């Protein structure tokens, strides 16, 4: 391919689509705006330069010199030069280095050191090799799922360290060392019936009861460190220091939630900076898909072929969508009214479907809880007993799998463009999953507090239903524990009973089946939503079960290896490329939504509900928060006043007003910036036309 600069003398000016005559490119290439292109290459290969015969080859070098002078502050590695050029510049820099002051030398030295530290840290990331392997075979889209999973593992590990370190480990240590424990909490005005709590079984217990207890968190499991009910409301004295167990419990739970919030927000902001767009983001889709479309990490194999196919498919789909949108804008009002009516009907249907699913979850929870109390667990036989215990989990999982399929079918009736279809289905699925969890919690709440009525029969004595739930926190923790275990079981079962057989059937079975059903495709959005759901379950349960974050970490680690196994054995790359970046931010947003949902039961339990009197580190207290306020009362006067001021309305309302004002100011600023950008773009367009006009004139005159 002969470079075009060699042809400039021969060709006449080209005509471009506007009908304007384009001047020969040679003059354009001498403009300063193109001068930055000449860095690469040694003397002879100055790329893109208008090296018409006769121009001395020394010219690029001179330019190098003057540009290099401006760029001394830029690190050498960021210059688009070849190695030989960079080396020359470095030599020149070193010669000037002895003139530099001590301060600058120290700066350079520290920068180099941080660079090396950063390099080794990057290498030490966990699972780096696996992620690289996945990226090479399936692309960055699927790798983003595993990246997200790794982030969740680290998040859970950090949180687990917090809860285990401040609650579980000290408790275990205190018991092991058999230290003195002083009971706290008022024990005068306590009704004895509220204190009845004995989860251990009496009499002859068959062996499978222990197995059932392990799986459903009842019986002997309630008396382990796993659940809230085990901890004491006491303070431990050792070495002149008093370790207040309930305070430690409360603060570690609140700290765990705050750390998670901070970590997720930090990561979301980091991702947002990368995907921030000044104006309308939709304006960039075609350039983004073409210029950043090819995954350079793909190695040889079927992945490349698949990537070509998926890029072609995507570009075709987008172009079709564009033509469709143009047609749709030309629809008549009658057609439009019909379409809106159809969409309204579909939305109502969706809501009805959601209502039915929620009602099923509510009924299942009621039945399961009542059944567990009424009949002893050992009397029904293993399978039936487990089924009843896991009934809420089963119903929720079934709803989570089946209802999105119906959503997928319904959304096609609404005739939205494809990208909007996908987003809408995703939003509805997110709503379904998180809301079903809320419904479960609501049905538990209505049982525990007798539908919020403190004067109902069973709630009058202890302000909560002490017959069904003598230790209600453990009940809630138990439900979350069951959801966690069941989730993992479902993944294992689906892997063994659906995915592997499917692969076997498709590869070794009749060709018709292979064509109809096809190999499994690793869809990222449903898998990520599964992760978010699992993490939300862990968060909701963390307040009532301190070991749950640790269990969740183990579950996610196991999930990583299982999903990797199924990816490489059973799956083919997806038909439609998954845009990693913009969706990563969306998934973090959904995770934040899950965290927000988890805050609600936590805050409600801490501030409003009365803790069980028969168990737990808050027995005898009116609310969980009262331990903290009691502890604050023991602080010195100044600290107490300060904290009380911070918690009062006199501080909160002005702060809120100030934040509102700040937000409005930033919005106005952003609006004015976008207007400025629009004006500057118009100006650039005019300048471009001026430039073409002037260069044409110059070439005509010369």
């Amino acid at each position, binding site marked *: *391919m002969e470079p075009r600069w060699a042809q400039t003398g021969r060709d006449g000016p080209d005509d471009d689509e506007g009908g304007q005559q384009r001047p020969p490119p040679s003059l354009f290439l001498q403009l300063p705006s193109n001068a930055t292109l000449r860095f690469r290459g040694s003397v*002879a290969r100055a790329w893109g330069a208008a090296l018409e015969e006769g121009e001395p080859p020394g010219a690029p070098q001179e330019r190098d010199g003057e540009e290099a002078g401006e760029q001394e502050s830029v690190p050498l590695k960021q210059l688009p030069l070849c190695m030989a050029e960079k080396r020359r510049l470095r030599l020149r820099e070193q010669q000037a280095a002895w003139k530099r002051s001590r301060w600058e030398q120290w700066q350079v030295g520290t920068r180099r050191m941080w660079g090396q530290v950063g390099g080794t840290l990057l290498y030490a990331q966990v699972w780096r090799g696996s992620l690289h392997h996945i990226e090479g075979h399936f692309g960055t889209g699927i790798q983003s799922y595993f990246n997200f999973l790794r982030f969740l593992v680290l998040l859970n590990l950090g949180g687990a360290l917090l809860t285990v370190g401040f609650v579980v480990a000290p408790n275990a240590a205190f018991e092991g060392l058999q230290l003195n424990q002083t009971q706290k909490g008022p024990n005068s005005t306590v009704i004895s019936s509220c204190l009845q709590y004995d989860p251990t079984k009496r009499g002859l217990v068959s062996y499978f009861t222990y197995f059932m207890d392990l799986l459903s968190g009842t019986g002997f499991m309630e008396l382990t460190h796993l659940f809230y009910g085990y901890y004491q409301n006491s303070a431990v004295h050792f070495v002149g220091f008093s370790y207040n167990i309930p305070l430690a419990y409360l603060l570690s739970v609140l700290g765990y939630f705050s750390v998670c919030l901070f970590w997720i927000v930090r990561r979301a902001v980091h991702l947002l900076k990368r995907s921030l767009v000044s104006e309308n983001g939709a304006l960039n889709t075609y350039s983004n898909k073409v210029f950043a479309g090819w995954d350079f*990490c793909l190695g040889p194999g079927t992945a490349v072929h698949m990537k070509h196919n998926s890029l072609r498919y995507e570009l075709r789909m987008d172009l079709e969508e564009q033509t469709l949108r143009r047609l749709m804008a030309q629809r008549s009002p009658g057609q439009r009214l019909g379409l809106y009516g159809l969409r309204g009907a579909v939305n109502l249907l969706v809501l009805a479907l959601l209502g039915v699913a929620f009602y099923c979850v509510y009924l299942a929870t009621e039945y399961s809880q009542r059944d567990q109390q009424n009949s002893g667990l050992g009397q029904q036989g293993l399978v039936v007993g487990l089924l009843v215990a896991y009934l809420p989990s089963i119903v929720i999982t079934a709803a989570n799998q089946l209802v999105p399929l119906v959503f997928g079918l319904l959304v096609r009736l609404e005739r939205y463009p494809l990208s909007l279809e996908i987003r809408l289905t995703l939003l509805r699925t997110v709503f379904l999953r998180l809301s079903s969890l809320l419904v479960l919690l609501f049905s538990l709440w209505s049982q525990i507090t007798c539908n919020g009525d403190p004067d109902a029969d069973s709630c009058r004595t202890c302000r909560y239903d002490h017959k069904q739930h003598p230790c209600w926190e453990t009940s809630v923790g138990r439900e979350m524990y069951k959801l966690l275990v069941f989730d993992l079981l479902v993944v294992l079962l689906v892997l063994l009973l659906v995915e592997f057989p499917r692969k076997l059937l498709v590869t070794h079975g009749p060709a018709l089946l292979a064509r109809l059903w096809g190999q499994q495709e690793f869809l990222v959005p449903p898998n990520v939503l599964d992760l978010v759901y699992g993490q939300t379950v862990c968060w909701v349960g963390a307040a009532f079960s301190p070991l749950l974050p640790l269990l969740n970490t183990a579950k996610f680690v196991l999930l990583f290896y299982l999903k990797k196994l199924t990816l490489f054995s059973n799956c083919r790359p997806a038909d439609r490329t998954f845009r990693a970046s913009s969706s990563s931010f969306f998934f973090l947003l959904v995770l934040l939504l899950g965290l927000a949902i988890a805050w609600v039961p936590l805050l409600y339990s801490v501030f409003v509900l009365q803790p069980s009197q028969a168990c737990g580190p808050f027995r005898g207290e009116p609310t969980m928060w009262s331990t903290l306020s009691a502890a604050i009362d023991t602080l010195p006067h100044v600290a107490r006043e300060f904290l009380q001021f911070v918690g009062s309305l006199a501080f909160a309302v002005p702060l809120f007003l100030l934040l509102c004002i700040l937000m409005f100011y930033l919005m106005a600023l952003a609006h004015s910036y976008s207007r400025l950008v629009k004006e500057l773009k118009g100006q650039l367009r005019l300048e471009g036309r001026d430039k073409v006009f002037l260069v044409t004139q110059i070439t005509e005159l010369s």
Partner: protein
Amino acid sequence: MGGSASQLPRDLLGEYQELTFLTKQEIVLAHKRFSELLSKEERESILQKRVPKSKILTLPELRANPFQDRICRVFSTSEDEDGSMSFEDFLDMLSVFSDSATSEIKSHYAFRIFDFDDDGTLDRKDLEKLVNCLTGEGDETRLSESEMDQLIENILEESDIDKDGTINLSEFQHVISRSPDFASSFKIVL
């Protein structure tokens, strides 16, 4: 790591670390992979040898890449323009494609790679060749004429700010700066 003759001297390693975005481990790995492309006798003088393009393209990271020719062309400093690469060219290439390279240098070299006719701008023909590279080899994998025209119109609409019908380096870098997927896809790690 082989005999001492096949290892890099320490000061050279330090120099490479300063002049590229690669870490020490990555430079050592690159050295190993590059020396595997040479025959046993040539390995002694690895720093002076040039590996022909055909051998470079046997690397698994480049073998399936539709832009393999352009990559070799852009990073090669060979006087014969045959796309052969020396070890330092190889390091330059890995540096630009590494994880820690800045977005500016990546977009600069992406522009060079996509500029098929080397004239300093991306015009319609360059964009057409680019799209054909993306959709795959072979006639049945190409987009139709009308689809291609529509696509190129859309791209120019989005990226060509001064409306001169071509995309120059600054316009390209502006578009790339707003593209969130670029940094993660423009990456080759050994």
